[in-house]
């Protein structure tokens, strides 16, 4: 018996739950201008998120997937990307997408039942929100392959949940990334729950990061509530990817502080105590504490920025609420580049029906 391979999974945390630096941190930890900008982005997302939930509760939005508690990992991922990189979200990563230019009104449009939400202002090549779990991972791998074939120094990034890391597509994506040395960064956002299914029911693996070993990829676990750690892991992975060094699997450990979506009631299946404990580790508080300790932020700035966020969000909400429905023809017009004869006839019939009633 001889050992033919061995592996380690590292855990990355700089900023602890109290906002104290726990390890020799990367330059970002001292770049307060950037940190403040990122913190503001996180706060914007949180304000937007609360408003969206409220809109749903009052019947002005369909089912909505809250991102409460994911601000550090989402903004950490989104801010690390360059415009020419490609982002393949699931359905929750608004924080990442806002960094890239997607507008809040587009998020609302999508959850408001209107395909135009996916016609992002953000990078036009980014993938749309992706409901079929984990499938986005393979789209990102395909994008990464396209860039590699065209010798473009771009990376593709997908986000997938702890639940999604069980699905075929996730394994397929990281495996092909390893086999073909693709510039893909796969970020597993382990928020402990897949609707009502806890992380431990998904897999017997001690960490989700170690799934990368199966693909022969570098993999690392980060504290997903620590913006600095997320950014550090992303920066390293993206640089490797863009330079032709291949892919990375990052597990970002965080917590879904909200219900799964507004259609869910998490009290059915998880303890208040667990949620309460998770609030103590949430990502905003610790970053704020750190910024305040370094005089980069204070209560006044917090209030002022919150007010501005609220105003911006209101404007976005209004734009959404004032949007007119698409005409009935919109059902037909994007099915193919050109309308086949059959469909053209059905389209005519639908128009006639509209006019008839």
């Amino acid at each position, binding site marked *: 018996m001889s050992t033919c391979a061995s592996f380690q999974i590292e855990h990355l945390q700089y900023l602890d739950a109290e906002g104290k630096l726990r390890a020799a941190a990367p330059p970002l930890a001292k770049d307060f201008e950037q940190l403040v900008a990122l913190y503001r982005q996180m706060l914007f997302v949180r304000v937007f998120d609360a408003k969206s939930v409220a809109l749903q509760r009052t019947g002005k939005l369909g089912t909505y997937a809250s991102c409460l508690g994911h601000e550090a990992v989402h903004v950490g991922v989104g801010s690390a990307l360059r415009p020419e990189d490609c982002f393949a979200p699931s359905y929750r990563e608004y924080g990442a997408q806002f960094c890239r230019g997607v507008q809040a009104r587009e998020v609302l449009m999508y959850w408001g039942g209107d395909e135009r939400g996916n016609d992002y202002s953000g990078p036009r090549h980014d993938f749309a929100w992706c409901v079929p779990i984990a499938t986005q991972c393979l789209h990102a791998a395909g994008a990464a392959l396209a860039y590699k074939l065209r010798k473009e120094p771009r990376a593709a990034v997908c986000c997938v949940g702890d639940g999604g890391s069980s*699905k075929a597509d996730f394994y397929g994506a990281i495996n092909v990334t390893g086999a073909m040395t693709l510039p893909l960064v796969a970020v597993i956002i382990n928020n402990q729950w897949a609707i009502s*299914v806890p992380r431990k029911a998904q897999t017997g693996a001690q960490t989700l990061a170690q799934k990368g070993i199966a693909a022969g990829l570098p993999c690392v676990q980060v504290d997903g509530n620590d913006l600095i750690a997320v950014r550090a892991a992303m920066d390293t992975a993206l640089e490797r990817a863009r330079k032709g060094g291949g892919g990375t699997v990052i597990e970002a450990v965080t917590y879904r502080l909200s219900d799964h979506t507004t259609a869910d009631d998490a009290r059915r299946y998880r303890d208040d105590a667990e949620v309460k404990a998770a609030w103590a580790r949430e990502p905003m508080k610790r970053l704020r504490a750190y910024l305040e300790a370094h005089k980069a932020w204070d209560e006044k700035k917090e209030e002022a920025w919150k007010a501005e966020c609220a105003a911006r969000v209101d404007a976005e909400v209004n734009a959404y609420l004032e949007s007119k429905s698409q005409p009935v023809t919109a059902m037909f017009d994007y099915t193919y580049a050109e309308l086949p004869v059959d469909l053209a006839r059905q389209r005519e019939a639908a128009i006639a*029906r509209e006019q008839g009633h």
Partner: protein
Amino acid sequence: MAQITLIEAVTQALAWEMAHDPAVVVLGEDVGVNGGVFRATQGLQQKFGPERVIDTPLDETTIAGLTVGLAAQGMKPVAEAQFEGFIYPMMEHIACHAARMRTRTRGRLHVPAVYRAPWGGGIRAPEHHSEANEHLFTNIPGLRVVMPSSPARAYGLLLAAIRDPDPVMFFEPKRIYRQYKEEVPDDGEALPLDVCFVLRDGSDVTLVTWGAQVKETLEAADALAKEGISAEVIDLATVKPLDFDTIAESVAKTHRCVIVHEAPRTAGFGAEIAARLAEHSMFDLYAPVERVTGYDTHIPLFRLEMKYLPSVQRIVEAAKRTLTV
């Protein structure tokens, strides 16, 4: 004996069969403590324990394949796809194994499994939560495709599906999960599979449908009655294998037929019914068969979805067209 909804009838059938047959297990995503995202399995885990009501990892391939393995080894698994729009990764195991095990082994092994899924649109749900994809399975030999459209039929057909020694796709029209309640005795009485249900007798036109569209179709029959037109309404219930004789008999009487379904028109299952009518009932028909269906487009997100789904008015108009030829 309480009045229950269609989805409660699903739960009641599962509970009955689990209580009476220890081989029955339920598996899927969120079927356990949460009782399913629609509550179809509500309370079952408390009653029967986590060994019989099993939350699986989030992988439909896994659910489908485990189910084949369980069933081939003496269990009677009832697997759930959380929404029918997520059933695609189950297809290899369903088509190549569940549907084929008996044929492949000349009966040595077989797969008495049920694959349940909430089906269809109209509940203002997010993307991929509104699919009506029965066509994926209706051409596959060895499968049954069943779709209940009332609480009583949900109860009786699900019991039959679980007891059936062959694999059954059981699609639950979620739009009418809670449409109305009716008394459904919890007596373990199954309904026959492979049989259509005539929901309403009529003499002027036959309306054939299944799933959630039974609602609009019955309403259309009401509307037609007000105009003096007597519509017979047939609920396929078991889409595959098709009980065509019941339809043919009806059309022999009414001489007219409108088929109503939610899925896209082209190559939807309505085509099979119309084709059989063309083959076997051509000389009974006084008017061309009409199909009232979804368009050949993806069901739109919910702001437009009601413009996609067949409406009472479209059914009424089609019925009248068959009467004016």
